[in-house]
C-alpha cells in the first residue's frame, strides 16, 4: 500500500522533474538530426495495443522497403499508461515522432501545439467524414484515420430462442427493443433483457442521445446539450429500462460488468463495438451463441463512430520523413494489410477482409452503420466533462435524483468547464 502511493507520488515528481529539464533526452530520433543529406533516419512510432504491435511492425517494415533510409521503431505503451506517459514526454519536448491519437484527446494536443498539422493537400474523401472532422481543428487536418469502430447490438441467440422472441431485424425501433427486453427478462433465472451500462458512453448514452435527436455538445464545442429535452429522452431510454427491471441495477453492474454478465448468459442484448469481435469469437460461451444487429431506431437511426488516427509530433526532428510515414499508414496499401489482421481499416473499400474473417457473425452490420454514423463528441478538454458526466449521471442511474435534474446539473457543470477551455 505504502509502496504504491509512493510510486504515484513518484510519477508526479518525475513529471515535474521532466518539465524542469525540458530539453529531455530525445526519443531516439532527435539525437542524430541529419539536416540536408538523406542519411539514415530512425522514427519512433508509439502505439497502445499489444495485439496490433506485430501488424504495426509489418507496416513499418513495408514502409522501410520503399524508403530504405528511414527506419521505424514501434514503441508499445499499454493503454493504462499511454496518455500519462505521452503527456509527460510531450511536456519534456520528447514526444515520439509519430503516434496514435484518439478523439477525446485530439483537441487537447492540437490546441497546445503538441502535434503538427498536415500541410500537404490530401484526398480525405477516402475516409468516413465524421472521422476526418474528428481530427480537424480550426480548419486544419492533423491526422489520417487509421481504423474505425461503430456500435451494434450483440444478442444471445440461445436466450432469444428460449424466450420465443424473433431475432432483431434491420430497421427495428426503440419500441421493438423495449418489448424484446421485457420478454427476454426472466427474474427467476437472473436473466435480464439488456444492461444499461453507465461507464462507457460510446456504446450507450451517446448513441441513444443522437437517436433521440439530441446532442452532447454543440457543433462549435461551446455549449452542453444535456439540458435539451431530446438529449434527456436519450438518457431516459436507459434509466427506464432499469426502473422496469429489464436491466440490472447500477450496483449489480458495478460488481459484475455487463460484458461479464453477457458472457455468462445473464444478459440477452449487449450494446457493444465492432472491437468486441475478437472477444466474442474467442470466448467459449459466446463464440457460437451470439450474433450482431444494428442499433434500434429512435427518432432517427444513428451510431457513434470513432477511430484512431496517426499524428506527428510538432517537435519531430524529421518532419518530412514523419509525414511520409503517416501518409503511407493512411494509404490503401497499408489499409489492406491492416484489414487482414487488425481492426476495421478506415480507408473506404478495404474492409472486405475484416468482414470475411468471421463469417459466423453478421459483421457487415458495422460497415452499413457508417452511412448513418454520428461523430464522437469532443472538445479541448474532453476528459474534464467526461468526469462530470459520470459524477452527475450516477445519481440518475441509482434513482437518487430524477434524470431531468441530474442532466440540468450536468449541463451547468459542463458549460462552466467549456467556458474555461
Amino acid at each position: 500500500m505504502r509502496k504504491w502511493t509512493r510510486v504515484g507520488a513518484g510519477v508526479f515528481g518525475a513529471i515535474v522533474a521532466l518539465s524542469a529539464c525540458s530539453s529531455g533526452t530525445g526519443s531516439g530520433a532527435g539525437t542524430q538530426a541529419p539536416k540536408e543529406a538523406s542519411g539514415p533516419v530512425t522514427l519512433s512510432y508509439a502505439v497502445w495495443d499489444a495485439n496490433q504491435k506485430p501488424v504495426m511492425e509489418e507496416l513499418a517494415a513495408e514502409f522501410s522497403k520503399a524508403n530504405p533510409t528511414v527506419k521505424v521503431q514501434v514503441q508499445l505503451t499499454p493503454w493504462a499508461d499511454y496518455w500519462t506517459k505521452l503527456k509527460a514526454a510531450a511536456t519534456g519536448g520528447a514526444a515520439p515522432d509519430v503516434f496514435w491519437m484518439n478523439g477525446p484527446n485530439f483537441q487537447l494536443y492540437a490546441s497546445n501545439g503538441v502535434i503538427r498539422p498536415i500541410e500537404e493537400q490530401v484526398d480525405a474523401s477516402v475516409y468516413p467524414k465524421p472521422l476526418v472532422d474528428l481530427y480537424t481543428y480550426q480548419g486544419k487536418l492533423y491526422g489520417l484515420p487509421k481504423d474505425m469502430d461503430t456500435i451494434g447490438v450483440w444478442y444471445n441467440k440461445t436466450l432469444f430462442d428460449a424466450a420465443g422472441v424473433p431475432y432483431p431485424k434491420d430497421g427495428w425501433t426503440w419500441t421493438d427493443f423495449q418489448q424484446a427486453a421485457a420478454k427476454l427478462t426472466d427474474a427467476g433465472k437472473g436473466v435480464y433483457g439488456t444492461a444499461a451500462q453507465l461507464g462507457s458512453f460510446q456504446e450507450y448514452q451517446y448513441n441513444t442521445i443522437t437517436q433521440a435527436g439530441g446532442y452532447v455538445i454543440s457543433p462549435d464545442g461551446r455549449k452542453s446539450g444535456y439540458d435539451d429535452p431530446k438529449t434527456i429522452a436519450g438518457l431516459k431510454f436507459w434509466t427506464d429500462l432499469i426502473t422496469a427491471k429489464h436491466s440490472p441495477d447500477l450496483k449489480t453492474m458495478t460488481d459484475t460488468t455487463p460484458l461479464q454478465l453477457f458472457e455468462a448468459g445473464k444478459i440477452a442484448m449487449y450494446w457493444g463495438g465492432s472491437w468486441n469481435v475478437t472477444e466474442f469469437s474467442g470466448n467459449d460461451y459466446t463464440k457460437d451463441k451470439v450474433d450482431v444487429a444494428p442499433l434500434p431506431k429512435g427518432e432517427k437511426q444513428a451510431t457513434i463512430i470513432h477511430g484512431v488516427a496517426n499524428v506527428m509530433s510538432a517537435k519531430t526532428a524529421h518532419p518530412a520523413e514523419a509525414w511520409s510515414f503517416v501518409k503511407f499508414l493512411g494509404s490503401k496499401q497499408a489499409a489492406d494489410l491492416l484489414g487482414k489482421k487488425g481492426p476495421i481499416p478506415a480507408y473506404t473499400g478495404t474492409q472486405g477482409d475484416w468482414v470475411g474473417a468471421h463469417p459466423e457473425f453478421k459483421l457487415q452490420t458495422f460497415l452499413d452503420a457508417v452511412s448513418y454514423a454520428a461523430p464522437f463528441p469532443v472538445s479541448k478538454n474532453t476528459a474534464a466533462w467526461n468526469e462530470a458526466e459520470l459524477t452527475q449521471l450516477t445519481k440518475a442511474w441509482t434513482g437518487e435524483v430524477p434524470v431531468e435534474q441530474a442532466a440540468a446539473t450536468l449541463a451547468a457543470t459542463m458549460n462552466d468547464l467549456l467556458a474555461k477551455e
Partner: protein
Amino acid sequence: MTLTTTRSGAAHAAPVKGKDRSRRSEALWGLAFIAPTGLGLAVFYLWPVLQTAYFSLTEWGAFGGHTWTGFDNYLRLAGDPEVGQALRNTLLYTALGLAAIPLAIVFAALLNVKGLRGVGAYRTLFFLPVVTMPVAIAMVWRWLYNGDYGLINHLLALVGLDGPNWVSDPATALYALVVVGVWSSLGYNLIIFLAGMQAIPKEYYEAAAIDGAGPIRQFFKVTVPLLSPTAFFVSVVSVIGSLQLFDLVYVMSGSGAAARANPAFPRLQTVVQLFYDRAFVTNDRGYAAAIVMMLLVIIIALTVLQFRLQRRWVHYG
C-alpha cells in the same frame, strides 16, 4: 563547518589546528558518505516537493506552461465539496485503521506463546498479504465482495442472510475497504509487535509470576506497557500510510475513470485519488498540486501531534 574554519583561522597553537584539520576531514568524509543518498533525496524528493509547492500557486495546463494565480487554488480547495468528501473518507479510514492496531497486538501475543505448534506456518500466513501486490489483493477481494456471485454473500445465503453489494453500496463500501486494509497490513504490524515482545526481558515475567500474576495479567501489566514504543511506531506509520491510501480504492471502486460510475464512489474517494484525477485525468495540475500540499500539511500536523501525545502513554523501558 564554517564555525571550525573561523576558529582555526584565529592565532591558536599548532596542536589545536591539527585537531581541527582532522575533525574537518572527518566531516568531509561523512558528507561524502551521505552524498549519494542526500543527493538522491534532494533531486527526487526535496526538489519535486518545492516545485509542487510552487505549482500549487499556478494554473498549470496539460503540457506545462503555467500562469501565476496566487492563492486561487487554495481558495477553490476550501470551497470544493469533493475535497471535503475525500478528506472525510480518508480520515475515517485512518481512524478505523488506527482502532484496529490492538488486533495486531493480540495476534502477535498469540503467536508469541511458547511451544505453539506450527508457529512458522502461522507467521507465514499472517505475513503473506504484506508481500502480495496490493492490486492483486484488491482484485481478489472485489470478487469476494461481489453482491451476486461473491463468496461472502454465498456463505451468508447458506444461513439465510441476504448480503449487500459490499463495495458498490454507499452504506457498506468504506467499511468493506477498511477490512481489506486492516487485513493486508495486519502481518506487517504483527511482525513489528512480535519483535517488540521478544525484546522484553524474561525477568519481568518471572518477577510478575512470582508476585502471582497470571498470563492475562502479565499481558496487560508487563507486555502492553513495554510494547508502547512499538505501538507508537506502528501508529505513526499506519496513519501516514492510511492518509496516502490510493491503490486499494483505485482498483476496488472499479479502476480508473469508470470508478465514478460506482454508486458508492462518493464514500470511497480518497484525497490521493482526487489528486490523481485532477493531475492525470482532467489536466488540472496546479489544483492537483494544491491538493497534495494540503495532504502534506495534514500528515505533518498529525505526525507532530502524535509525537506530542506520546509523552502521555509511551513508556521507554
